[in-house]
């Protein structure tokens, strides 16, 4: 393996090797061995967990415990007929689902799944580390709104249009408190690099959820609303809007919307884990007696990746748990919660954090 890499370095030169070839390998692993399988089995896990919570069995016919169900679902969606409604705006209808999926994927290029290389030439567990990574995440996380509103408007169907508008209104409303909440950890870390933020938590000796629990709460609520999940899944409220913005979508285009929703769940969870739950750090990173939790017997910082994944799974479970537990909000309640509660809460948190930082 290392011989092959050395030969590639020889053939391409250092720039192309370090900034295109190695990232390309990492991207392939992140996307095809990480995110996509995770999405497929997250859907199955959701159905299984919801079934368990409602005293049902959940999918259990395709493979043992329904383990092959995701593959059957993908096959089904691939061979379904593609229906574009009459008088739809075709370019918007086609572009919509693509704009939801692509940005959600690209965000994973700045998420640190594990620690940077400990030695020269070692493995860094992220695709790239830039000094405005958090800004990049926010910018890309905004783009799916365009996809949803284009898809909803382009369908030229009343349910789609209303669903798309609602969805866009909801997403931009919660983006404001989300942005304000992110300033809290930024104040403590003093950098926008996600690797830098995790390292700041290590240096502080605690995860940012401890001093920034208000920001974490606001981010959690806003994150659930941003990804259009229960109890804030109004854009696709079956009882009033049929299926919301994707009413008219069939087959693979519907699958892309579905993929985008779950990818966004994973994105929000990853960002929350990185900013508030210490990323790849073990619990209580400053307590020396717990250093066996570093899992340092694993090679090349893999222990950090294990911790990151564990926290990510807990977060994703909480998403499913919410869906099994909470009834849906009404639209005016949802707007009031965002604009009248979350924004003041985030601003007060911002003020107090700044005050404490000036004081100390």
């Amino acid at each position: 393996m290392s011989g092959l890499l050395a030969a590639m370095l020889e053939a391409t030169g250092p720039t192309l090797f370090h900034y295109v070839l190695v990232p390309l390998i990492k991207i392939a692993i992140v996307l095809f061995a990480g995110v996509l399988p995770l999405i497929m089995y997250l859907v199955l896990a959701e159905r299984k967990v919801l079934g368990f919570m409602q005293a049902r069995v959940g999918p259990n016919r395709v493979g043992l415990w329904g383990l092959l169900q995701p593959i059957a679902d993908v096959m089904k969606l691939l061979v379904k007929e593609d229906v574009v409604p009459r008088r739809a705006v075709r370019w918007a209808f086609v572009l919509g689902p693509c704009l939801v999926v692509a940005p959600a994927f690209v965000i994973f290029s700045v998420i640190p799944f594990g620690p940077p290389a400990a030695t020269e030439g070692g493995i860094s567990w992220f695709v790239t580390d830039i000094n405005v990574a958090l800004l990049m995440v926010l910018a890309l996380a905004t783009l799916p709104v365009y996809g949803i509103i284009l898809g909803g408007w382009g369908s030229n169907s009343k349910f789609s249009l209303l669903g798309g508008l609602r969805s866009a209104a909801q997403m931009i409303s919660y983006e404001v408190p989300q942005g304000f909440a992110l300033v809290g950890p930024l104040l403590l870390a003093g950098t926008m690099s996600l690797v830098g933020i995790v390292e700041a938590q290590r240096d502080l000796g605690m995860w940012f959820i401890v001093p920034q629990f208000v920001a974490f709460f606001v981010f959690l609520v806003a994150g659930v609303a941003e990804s259009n999940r229960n109890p804030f899944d109004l854009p696709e409220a079956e009882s009033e809007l049929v299926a919301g913005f994707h009413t008219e979508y069939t087959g693979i285009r519907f699958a892309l919307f579905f993929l985008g929703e779950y990818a966004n769940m994973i994105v929000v969870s990853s960002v929350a884990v990185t900013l508030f739950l210490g990323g790849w750090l073990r619990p209580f990173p400053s307590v020396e007696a717990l250093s066996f939790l570093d899992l340092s017997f694993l090679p090349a910082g893999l222990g950090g990746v294990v911790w990151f994944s564990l926290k990510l799974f807990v977060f994703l479970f909480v998403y499913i748990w919410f869906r099994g537990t909470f009834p849906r909000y009404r639209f005016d309640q949802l707007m009031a919660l965002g604009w009248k509660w979350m924004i003041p809460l985030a601003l007060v948190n911002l003020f107090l954090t700044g005050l404490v930082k000036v004081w100390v």
Partner: protein
Amino acid sequence: MILAFRSYALPILPAICSRVLGYLPILVFCVVAVLFLAGTLLAARLLRHAGSGATDREPYECGNEPESFAHDHRFSIRYYLLAVLFVIFDVETVFLFPWAVMFDQLALFGFIEMMVFLTILVVGYVYVWNRGALSWA
């Protein structure tokens, strides 16, 4: 002249280059994401059922014949108002980010400055709230 330029630029250039090059993997990821979408859509195009031709392509309206299309109607002005409010607040967020990163250097002066800025924002926020723009009903 050229020699002088090179001796001046050489220590700085690699630093700038490596910083800009750090964005290159993101571009690579964009390309991969687009290729993934193209591949998926192409696979679906090859595999999918052609359709019997009898499928009703009318937009869904609970099984009734639609009397009008969505684009024949107007939608609530509230969405527009909301978008304007969003732009105002989101610009504030963009100002807050560099301030938070530079907080230690700006210290007390920066803190007071930002609080003055936020106070102006809050005045507008309270005004908008009082005018009922934040209530949906």
